[in-house]
């Protein structure tokens, strides 16, 4: 039951983007298309789960005052592994995501989970936490990218929806991401406030 809770909390109750408010940079930048969002989710979740496992593994040996540099080294290593692998075997994805792959290093979700959760909990719990948080990140990114790709590019999965229609380019640039994210936050807070009553 405890495992299940640690897993599902990332999707709604402690959604990294909508509730914790971290990891905004990739959220706003890569959600121009659904496929970008899905690849970003996969890369981030991969790094998140691996770093959670390792941080949880070394938590006994790491002196408190140098934990941050050690966590960052671990995270940066996994990010570079993911980056090289994508470059070698998925060049199109590597090209589409560009600078945002190396920037996973500074994604606050990963360091945040290492610091807040993995360094205090067991390996198995940390894995569940990592997958749950990754899923929460992914669902948010997917919804955002779904709205933005349909309205901003008149496309879905790179395929045109209505031939000949001119899409709204405001949705594809940063303001469109803020509008959509704001509406999502409003919706989430509305539902949560109704629940309490």
């Amino acid at each position: 039951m405890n495992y299940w809770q640690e897993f599902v909390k990332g999707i709604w109750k402690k959604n990294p983007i909508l509730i914790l408010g971290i990891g905004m940079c990739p959220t706003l930048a890569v959600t121009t298309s659904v496929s970008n969002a899905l690849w970003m989710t996969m890369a981030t979740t991969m790094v998140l789960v691996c770093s959670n496992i390792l941080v949880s593994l070394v938590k006994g040996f790491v002196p408190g005052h140098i934990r941050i540099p050690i966590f960052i080294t671990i995270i940066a290593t996994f990010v570079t592994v993911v980056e090289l692998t994508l470059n070698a075997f998925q060049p199109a994805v590597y090209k589409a995501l560009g600078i945002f792959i190396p920037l996973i290093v500074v994604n606050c979700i990963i360091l945040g989970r290492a610091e807040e959760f993995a360094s205090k909990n067991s390996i198995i719990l940390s894995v569940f936490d990592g997958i749950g948080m990754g899923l929460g990140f992914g669902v948010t990114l997917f919804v955002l990218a779904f709205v933005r790709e349909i309205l901003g590019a008149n496309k879905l999965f790179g395929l045109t929806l209505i031939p000949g229609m001119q899409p709204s380019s405001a949705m594809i640039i940063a303001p469109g991401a803020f509008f959509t994210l704001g509406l999502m936050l409003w919706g989430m807070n509305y539902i949560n406030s109704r629940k309490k009553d």
Partner: protein
Amino acid sequence: MNNIVKPAIILALVAFVSSMVLSHIKKITYPSILKQEKEKQERALAIVLPGYTVGEQKNLTLDGTDFTYWPAEKDESGKMIKGYAFIASSPGYSGQVVSMVGVDDRDTILGMSILQQSETPGLGARSIEVASSSTFFGTIFGNNRGAREETRPWFQLQFTGLNAKNKINIVKKGDWNEALKDELASQNAVSAITGATITSRATIKGIEKAIGLLHTALERETVEAAGKVTNQGGAR
């Protein structure tokens, strides 16, 4: 003392393990990355110089800028026609727009291909968008028969046939289509990407700059070749 030495050792150990892991991963992925880069370049050369036999790559520095070009030849009914491919680069809206351009000996563009760009997705990044008439619902319901598939981005296709030595103009007529072809050709112009005139202009600027460099490089080559011949003549 223990407060300094122990953390330092632990940190060094972590860094050591991490660099060991990375060097192994790099070793595994490197051949594949290298192969892809080479394939990408060969594919681009085949696009910009269709039918030509491409010679060796030449790198040189002219007036402080690096310039890369490839001489090429084509056998057209017994006559050898010369052509050149070169790299053009110019700052776009965000970062360099790097393209490869092929020209014949009269500076007519035979083809161009954008190799690298980091423009805004949905606007400037449409410079590498391939026009497709297949739709989402069409793909789902399987009635995409008759849909025309281009293999190359429409923005880049427009450059074929233009004269690089003359000024390339920009017109704002929206996405390129077959009907615009004659009008654009008569004006030596391309139709800009809607909402991304900066990207379109950067691409053209890069080509204009690079064609000048190509001519400087070729002139220098002729002078050097002539110099060599006279030197050899003198030695004899």
